């Protein structure tokens, strides 16, 4: 197994796979965060009719099976689908789209519960001190930063380890749409369990590094 790990790590193709994994997951996470945090914060802070329904939808979205998302994206991007003319199917763009859809409810719902957990008194106090609505929202978000980090970390974990959707819409094309998880599936299918284990270890180490980095940032921001 150690041999396999070395073999995997010495392979230049692996570097390509690792970069693609981070590019796809990273981009999906950025987009999901950019949309999910404001949406989650807005839902958490605002009071409006139908809020319970939106909350329910977001919570349900957290449990969406990735392969179902993959299937939706596939049907959408297929040449005979609504967005077929984009020719995104079996490209990294399709994978980013699918992972964004998977990550969005995680980010939004966890952001929502994080801001809801902030003492409402704080907001009133800040407003009383003359802060604008925007400024007070920032204060609340800052106060909820640990919850926000957890949201991003959870979304990151959810999509970097995801295989069903990226396999379906990416196609696991060598040198083009093959990421770590689909590479693991391939080597398992080929009966190369040693290589699959080694790739799994690589994935785990990368996730560990990324999360350590995120936690570091959270610490520094404090």
């Amino acid at each position: 197994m150690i041999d396999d790990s070395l073999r995997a790590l010495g392979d230049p193709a692996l570097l390509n796979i690792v970069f693609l994994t981070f590019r796809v997951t990273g981009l999906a996470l950025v987009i999901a965060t950019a949309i999910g945090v404001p949406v989650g914060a807005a839902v958490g802070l605002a009071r409006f009719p139908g809020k319970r329904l939106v909350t329910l939808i977001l919570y349900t979205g957290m449990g969406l099976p990735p392969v179902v998302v993959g299937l939706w994206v596939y049907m959408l991007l297929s040449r005979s689908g609504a967005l077929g003319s984009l020719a995104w199917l079996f490209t990294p763009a399709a994978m980013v789209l699918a992972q964004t859809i998977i990550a969005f409810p995680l980010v939004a719902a966890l952001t929502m519960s994080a801001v809801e957990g902030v003492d409402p008194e704080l907001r009133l106090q800040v407003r009383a001190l003359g802060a604008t609505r925007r400024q007070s929202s920032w204060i609340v978000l800052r106060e909820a930063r640990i919850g926000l980090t957890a949201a991003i970390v959870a979304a990151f974990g959810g999509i970097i380890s995801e295989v069903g959707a990226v396999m379906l819409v990416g196609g696991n094309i060598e040198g083009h749409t093959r990421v770590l998880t689909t590479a693991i599936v391939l080597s398992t299918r080929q009966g190369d369990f040693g290589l699959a284990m080694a790739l799994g270890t690589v994935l785990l180490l990368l996730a560990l590094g990324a999360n350590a980095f995120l936690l570091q940032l959270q610490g520094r921001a404090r």
Partner: protein
Amino acid sequence: MMRTGTVVACSAAAVLVAVAAGPIEPGRVAASSQQKVLRLATTTSTVDTGLLADILPDFQARCGCRVDVVAVGTGQAIELGKRGDADVLLVHSPEQEAAFMKEGHGIRRDDVMYNDFVIVGPTGDPAGVAKASSARDAFRSIARAAAAFASRGDRSGTHTKERAIWKSAGIDPAEEGPQRPSWYLSVGQGMGETLAFANEKQAYALADRATWTSMQGRLPSLRRLFGGGSGDENPDRDLRNQYSVIVIDQARHPGVKAALGLQFADWLLSKPTQARIAAFGRDSAGRSLFYADSDEYKATDRVRVESGGRSRTFTLGEIAKLRSTTLSGVEYIGVKKGRLGRHAWTGVSLTDLLLALDPGIASKSRSTSTIEVVSSDGWTASFTWHELFGSVSRGEGLYRAKGCNECHGLKAEGTRPEGKRPAPKLLGETYPVGDTTAMIRSGTAQHEGITAYTADRLSDADLAAILGWLARPNQAGTDDVFVVPPPRRIAMLAYERDGRPMTGRDGLIQLVVGFDEFASRYSHWVSEIRVRY
């Protein structure tokens, strides 16, 4: 204060952007993003065995394009084709492919290569599969023993084949619902996973030989129990695993790159690529994993003739210059494939061709010779000297014309080839007429897997003549010794069919044996003729 607040929400993501900096596509690919891309949807076995990785770089260099390989089960690959999400398919499920073509999704479908399926199972073989005479026989014994059986269950080519074998065995364990027996385990995964599963669960499984060969070393509890040591030794021809290439129709699915797809198909079927496919695995696995099978690969425009110590290679042009013979009103019937239609054939008679090289061959002193007609795919048809230069009785002539010799041997001496289904000696032996007739007529018992010789394929009188010759091969003076007149008894190398030159696909140079109103024996792609003494 607010500036530090932004850090949490954004900088974590920003750092990931730094990692993800640049275009979405990996740099290497982005540099050539203007490149044409051909999308090939294929079955997992072509990727898992490493075949495509071996042959594709050559095509990519030629077309200046990139081939995106999407490896899925044949069922899914065909679905991708139906939605226009692939440009070409390389798949192995003839029935599903035929339906696909009928629905008008493809513009072209060609045979590319084949290998075969084997039945693997636990080393102890509790169901006795190793003793089976055919795949369906093996499946029956698995069902009888209620031994664990791992099915792909994923509508792949292998799964489709497995279902067809169960169906022919008259058992349907895959039926959904409470009737499904507990020993039938539908795994719903790829070949590799299914084999690994069978290895753990001590289950039987149907596997394509290529995947089995490449994984065998990692499956210590499994053994090949049926299928022989190589594709040539597989006793059941129904276990053939045929791969085809299909180019998707651009008219039906706009956006599909049909021109590039056709270029790919032509390249895949070309002789050099086919030679590469045939050689693949010889170094790493010690044996070929696929047999090249394109018409272009097998077609040959010359025939080497060897007789009486002489040899000469005749080109198609030279053959066409010899005296031509035409055979018309002949029904074309295969032992396995059944009726193929009525055609008029033009070519050179085998007798004339042999005489052109070796005039002495017609001499009575050479009457013990056997003439072998070999095709480029290895198929061999044999004739006795009497069949071509002497006289044969009606029974003997019919025996070969109807293809009985394919299994029972040129002189009904019986065959027992290594690893294949043995066929008993018939000549001079005594068999009960009733049982024998029933078996031949219905294609059952020992004739299982052979198309039934119904009355329209073999009349009662002809069957009686064959049985008569087998019972009394040397007896003169009976009706059986009626000698078929030469004009109705032709063995020819045909190069034209219905007045048009034959293409590589038709066989280019084809052996047609006419006898009475039937031409039962035929071989494609004749490349060599040898006379043995």
